[in-house]
């Protein structure tokens, strides 16, 4: 591994000139690589505007990113405005029933052709000069067409589709990059975690159309990750609140601390930057605590019976215990945590939006879905018992990192005890920083374009 910028002084990356390298070197392949050491990363990854620009270009405008779920656009003409990194796109179901991801940019002189966040349209009209497109993106008409010659090619002026679009069981992903792994290959082991959510519905169908809690915090996008070390501190107030009501749904799963020293929860990295807090075993141990609560809800017994009839006693119990929560982060912008799917959008080195979309299950009672919403609201969203404390700590971190005397962040926790599981995933204790290392491993790979060096960079 190149050792540029790794002089004895811990702040060598910042003081590039002192060891013979100019400031520009910091952003070279070797410079970026020097910001990642075994168990340590340089805080410039979170604070430097130039690195942020490189992340947008090399990660968000190249990787597969999550756009939305098919169920958000059930009918022809339904659309949602989203983004790929900084680029505005629309996820739209065409009159032909196909869900597309189209760049929201008129092919004439560049204005967006759709300005409201969601809705249904028969056509998309650019109000700059009146060009109109149908719901498949085809250019239908140009105002005052006499101004264009006979050889003007209407077909070549359709709304541009995202270069690559993939659909995994209803979850739509897109990529600005024209090459790279297929979506299936990219998701890899993480696709099984998406399955865990979908299969928790008796009909294996979900609906991601229950609205959205939109949050924003003044911190870097990479902070909102899978972290089993933080709950006892960041969420001390919520843990205390649940423990005094141990018979409620949330309380039941906290009778033994899922992030305590003796927990059976593990951290698991799934490759390509994807990682999870694997609560499956811990939840199964508490099946007997959780099941009566679920059974007490209207439609609860039918729900339980339907899953067990479909999957058998063992697999059914595992699925019910997990309650559709894989607790997984899919690099770079998607998370599935508890009852929600999240989209993470980086706005600036120190500013990030997190949109939280609660998921409803098909084939269950209205009361069970209402309960899913109430559970979500209790811990997530701007007025809840959880997310605002996360955001507060991210903001404190962003402020703290401005102290640059020793600019390295320690992500070494558990590096000595992590192990490779039979399926090739890397496993650590619930509180270990396996997910942080996985995220940075993929970060470095995409930022430097070098797979082998990046995989080795974080190892002990």
């Amino acid at each position, binding site marked *: 591994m190149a050792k540029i910028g790794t002089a004895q002084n811990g702040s060598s990356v910042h003081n590039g000139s002192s060891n013979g390298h100019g400031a520009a070197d910091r952003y070279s392949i070797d410079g970026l690589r020097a910001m990642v050491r075994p168990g340590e990363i340089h805080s410039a990854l979170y604070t430097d505007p130039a690195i942020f620009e490189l992340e947008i270009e090399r990660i968000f405008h190249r990787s597969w990113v999550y756009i939305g779920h098919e169920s958000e656009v059930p009918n022809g003409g339904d659309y949602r405005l989203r983004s790929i990194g900084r680029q505005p796109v629309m996820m739209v179901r065409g009159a032909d029933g196909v869900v597309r991801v189209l760049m929201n940019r008129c092919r004439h002189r560049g204005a967006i052709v759709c300005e409201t966040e969601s809705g249904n349209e028969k056509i998309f009209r650019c109000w700059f000069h009146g060009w109109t497109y149908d719901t498949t993106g085809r250019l239908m008409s140009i105002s005052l067409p006499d101004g264009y010659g006979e050889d003007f090619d209407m077909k070549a002026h359709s709304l541009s589709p995202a270069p690559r679009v993939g659909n995994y069981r209803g979850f739509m992903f897109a990529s600005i990059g024209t090459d790279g792994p297929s979506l299936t290959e990219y998701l890899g082991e993480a696709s099984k975690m998406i399955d865990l959510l979908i299969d928790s519905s008796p009909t294996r169908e979900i609906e991601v159309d229950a609205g959205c809690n939109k949050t924003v915090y003044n911190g870097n996008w990479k902070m909102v990750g899978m972290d089993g070390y933080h709950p006892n501190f960041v969420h001390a107030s919520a843990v205390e609140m649940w423990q005094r009501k141990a018979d409620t749904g949330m309380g039941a799963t906290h009778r033994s601390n899922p992030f305590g020293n003796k927990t059976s929860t593990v951290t698991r990295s799934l490759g390509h930057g994807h990682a999870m807090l694997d609560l499956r075993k811990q939840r199964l141990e508490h099946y007997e605590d959780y099941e009566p609560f679920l059974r007490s809800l209207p439609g609860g017994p039918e729900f339980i019976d339907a899953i067990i009839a479909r999957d058998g006693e063992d697999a059914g119990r595992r699925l019910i215990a997990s309650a559709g929560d894989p607790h997984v982060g899919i690099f770079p912008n998607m998370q599935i945590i508890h009852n929600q799917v999240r989209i993470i959008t980086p706005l600036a080195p120190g500013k990030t939006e997190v949109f939280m979309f609660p998921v409803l299950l098909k084939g269950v009672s209205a009361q069970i879905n209402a309960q899913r919403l109430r559970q979500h609201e209790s811990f997530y969203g*701007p*007025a809840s018992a959880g997310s605002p404390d996360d955001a507060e700590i991210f903001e404190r971190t962003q402020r703290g990192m401005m102290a640059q005397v020793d600019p390295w962040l320690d992500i070494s926790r558990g590096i000595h005890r992590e192990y490779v599981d039979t399926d090739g995933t890397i496993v650590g204790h619930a509180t270990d920083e396996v997910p942080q290392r996985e995220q940075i491993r993929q970060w470095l790979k995409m930022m430097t374009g070098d797979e082998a060096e990046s995989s080795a960079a974080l190892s002990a």
Partner: protein
Amino acid sequence: MEDLQLIRAVERFLYREADLMDSHRYDDWFALWDEELRYWVPCNADDIDPARQVSLIYDNRGQLEDRLYRLKGRHAHAQRPRSRLMRAISNVIVESADSEIVKARSQFVLGEVRLDRQIVWLGRSLHTLVRRGDNFMIREKTVLLLNNDAPMGNLTFLI
């Protein structure tokens, strides 16, 4: 004239509620609520169906109690330091009144200062009040935030 007296009484009640919220007097504020209560802050739009759509807050008595219990503790980081709050209540309209229930609508401008940042929140409150002698208790309160469809930061104080 009777009408004016009722409006004055409702205003007095709402001003007192505003004071308690501004000064984080959680127990005193909780004491304003009726036994069977609903505290609702819709998300994304004002007219959503809370059984199918996510809210910002949709509390019954137990959930509201949890919320206040947490805020009173020492580890609710998003309120360390606390938001300093000052709100003006206006446009108070009594929408309906009978011998038991009074429904009122009002608007607020709420200034929040925390960590040197000042944020202005605006919204409309819909109160369903139960008459208790000369006073009221809150049975239902719905807060329609003007920005309920926009990304927002910390909303862990009382609105």
